[in-house]
């Protein structure tokens, strides 16, 4: 194409604590659909937020239609015709569809809302996405989740749109809605709108996109025409060629079965079965939103399962709530440590002993000296850095906070430990300490089930890795059997199936 691109990005860099994006060079043409993909944490959302003005780059520049483009806010970017539809819904449930679509620019006369004008504009906007069937006067909360997402996208189309960024737009949509969305996106492209389409679902990307951009570890790994690359090639580029893993370590010797779950369903999770043995670390891989966290919470009794049986140490067991779980030697290290783990504003020692106060108390009275000794002991063993054991946990670094929570469950001496992203937001030093401690736990005969988005972490730690995809456990790999590509392919597999089913349905 000889014409100048709509948006040109040059040498764009962004760091938070560590570099997230490095030297990104890209150009987007008028009227094309560009697929943006990569592993969790590759920098996809950072890049799109930079373009949409939600955050500012550290260095580098962007040109929009040949002119310097450095939006200072989302509103600023929207004025230039660059819009982003975020993955999380930001609609106000109690307001009508029309009000939501024009929030911030509701037509009014003498200070009163001009309802007719508002509804007419809303209808026009909905028609752009073929959503003529949605009544603009309905409160948003009465729509299904898929329709809400479509309304959210329609909101992105208000005003003069040149570039539209969609972040996982089909996550909540039914097959039929996906088809309709794709048809309308093709029409938008025909009208000269450039669309950046972020998704994990490679099959969708291959159907809709003209070009594919892959990010890996914050760098550009690929920028090619979609027709030129195969599904497998994309996966390989997401992972990178240097697939290094700790292959020399043999599988740990595992003992008797400590945890077995059969046919667990509830929430996202459908019919999941797995077993973990003494001395073994079982990894649970999968994309964000594939149901990994939900499965751990169902096992722990934090959420209610609809069906499923459970055995602990070979015997049938019942876990109705976390109290049951802990009493029977099952612990859960939660993913979100601030809201679900830590007692912020309280002392390190209190955070550490809370799940097992009987060890530091007698007849209902806390033994202060005993508690202090316990805290010191764990502080030393896990190398937790703090002034003293009375220091409040909010003053500790993320890595040390995680170690405190980890110590809470070590102190409880659980036979089965469920760990959800145990090294999230943890620096490299603390990460190595946690790995060593997990290894020691396995050697001490505990059964560990570890969820992580970092495949390399799982490949280093685990003896087996089970892969979840779209709420089901699709495949389990033994140590030595797996490759990063095979794991990733399995993580995508159930989404591909639903996609195929959708296309079949649409065709028939």
């Amino acid at each position, binding site marked *: 194409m000889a014409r100048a691109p709509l948006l040109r990005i040059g040498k764009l860099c962004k760091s938070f604590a560590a570099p997230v994006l490095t030297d990104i060079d890209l150009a987007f043409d008028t009227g094309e659909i560009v697929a943006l993909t990569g592993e969790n944490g590759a920098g996809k959302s950072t890049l799109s937020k930079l373009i949409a003005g939600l955050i500012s780059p550290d260095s580098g520049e962007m040109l929009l239609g040949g002119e310097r483009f450095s939006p200072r806010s989302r509103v600023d970017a929207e004025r230039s015709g660059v819009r982003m539809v975020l993955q999380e819904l930001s609609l106000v449930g109690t307001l009508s569809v029309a009000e939501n679509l024009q929030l911030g620019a509701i037509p009014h006369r003498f200070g009163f809302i001009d309802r007719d004008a508002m509804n007419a504009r809303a209808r026009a906007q909905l028609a752009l996405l073929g959503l003529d069937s949605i009544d603009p006067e309905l409160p948003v909360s009465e729509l299904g989740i898929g329709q809400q997402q479509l309304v959210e996208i329609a909101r992105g189309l208000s005003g003069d749109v040149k570039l539209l960024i969609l972040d996982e737009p089909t996550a909540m949509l039914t097959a039929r809605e996906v088809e309709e969305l794709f048809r309308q996106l093709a029409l938008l492209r025909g009208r000269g709108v450039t669309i950046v389409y972020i998704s994990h679902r490679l099959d969708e990307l291959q159907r809709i996109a003209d070009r594919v951009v892959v990010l890996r570890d914050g760098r550009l790994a690929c920028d090619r025409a979609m027709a030129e690359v195969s599904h497998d090639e994309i996966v390989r580029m997401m992972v990178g060629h240097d697939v290094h893993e700790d292959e020399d370590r043999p599988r740990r010797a595992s003992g008797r079965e400590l945890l077995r779950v059969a046919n667990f369903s509830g929430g996202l999770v459908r019919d999941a079965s797995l077993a973990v043995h003494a001395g073994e670390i079982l990894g649970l891989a999968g994309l964000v939103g594939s149901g990994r966290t939900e499965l751990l919470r169902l096992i722990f009794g934090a959420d209610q399962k609809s069906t499923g049986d459970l055995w602990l140490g070979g015997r049938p067991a019942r876990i109705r709530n976390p109290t049951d779980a802990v009493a029977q030697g099952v612990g859960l290290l939660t993913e979100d440590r601030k809201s*679900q783990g830590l*007692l912020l504003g*309280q002392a390190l020692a209190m955070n550490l002993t809370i799940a097992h106060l009987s060890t530091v108390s007698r007849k209902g009275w*806390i033994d202060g000296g005993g508690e202090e000794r316990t805290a010191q002991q764990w502080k030393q063993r896990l190398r937790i850095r703090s002034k003293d054991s009375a220091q409040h946990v909010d003053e500790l670094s993320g890595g040390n906070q995680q170690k405190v929570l980890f110590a809470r469950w070590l102190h*409880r001496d659980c036979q089965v430990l469920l760990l959800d992203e145990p090294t999230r937001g943890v620096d490299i030093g603390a990460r190595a300490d946690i790995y060593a401690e997990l290894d020691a736990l396995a050697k001490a005969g505990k059964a560990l089930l570890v969820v992580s988005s970092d495949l390399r972490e799982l490949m280093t730690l685990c003896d087996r890795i089970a892969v979840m995809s779209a709420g089901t456990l699709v495949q389990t790999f033994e140590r030595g059997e797996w490759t990063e590509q095979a794991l990733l392919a399995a993580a995508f597999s159930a989404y591909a199936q639903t996609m195929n089913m959708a296309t079949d349905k649409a065709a028939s």
Partner: protein
Amino acid sequence: MKQALGLPLALLALVVGFGLTSEYFLTRDTFIAIANDIPALTVMAVGMTFVLIIAGIDLSIGSVLALSAGLTAVAMQSWGWNLPGAATLGLACGLFCGTLTGAVTVAWRLPSFIVSLGMLEIARGSAYLVTDSRTQYIGGAIGGLSTPLWFGISPAFLLALAIVVASHIVLRKSVFGRYLVGIGTNEEAMRLAGIDPRPWKVIVFALMGSLAALGGLMQLSRLEAADPNAGVGMELQVIAAVVIGGTSLMGGRGSVLNTFFGVLIVAVLEAGLAQIGASDPAKRVITGCVIIVAVLLDVYRNRRKRG
């Protein structure tokens, strides 16, 4: 521990200030009057400290006080019950009201603000029904609780003091107290640590109800009568004293000892302002200002510590 010193200093400043402005303030009579005036407020403030620590609130305590006192009086006057029986009935009534508030709050996950607001009306209405909307005079029947022992100090005051000390130790040193602080700090984290918060929360409201009933008995013995209008607005006075003592309305932080200082500050302010001849409206304005300043100081102290 600056926090521990701030409140006694504020109290001292008030006493010295009133001592300088009124020649009658620094007398034995003033202090005895204060000591015999505060037992009901004190025991209820102790209960409220526990309630606020679990991030709850109980607005019904003034009504529960009136209902329990009324029931005790009626049992003695009209049904001919003896004192221990009637007093036990009053306490059981408070225990029941508190347990009900707590159980409904927990079972349906409702805000305790709303449930206790409902209980406020229910208990007040019941107090009118039980007493037939008339003040019940019981004469000196349970005067023993308020009859001065030594130096004019009543048993009620000593009982309140004992409850303060015991509750302080329970909150600081017991597993129960530890759980309450944890629940008020992060209820979900406690649940996921294997500690079911629900029974503990019910116990706290049950305790609050019982202490409100005890406050009712203390008033009954002092006034020798149960007025169905007793304790109107008292919940706010109690919450004010607890908040002045530095307990957080957001839960997870508080001290019974500091609550006691809060009660003393409110009581000294009240007595002192009366002695220097402040009108009732002026007293209320000044008390209101003190509450806001106390909370501001608390917020400021926290921000500085975090920042």
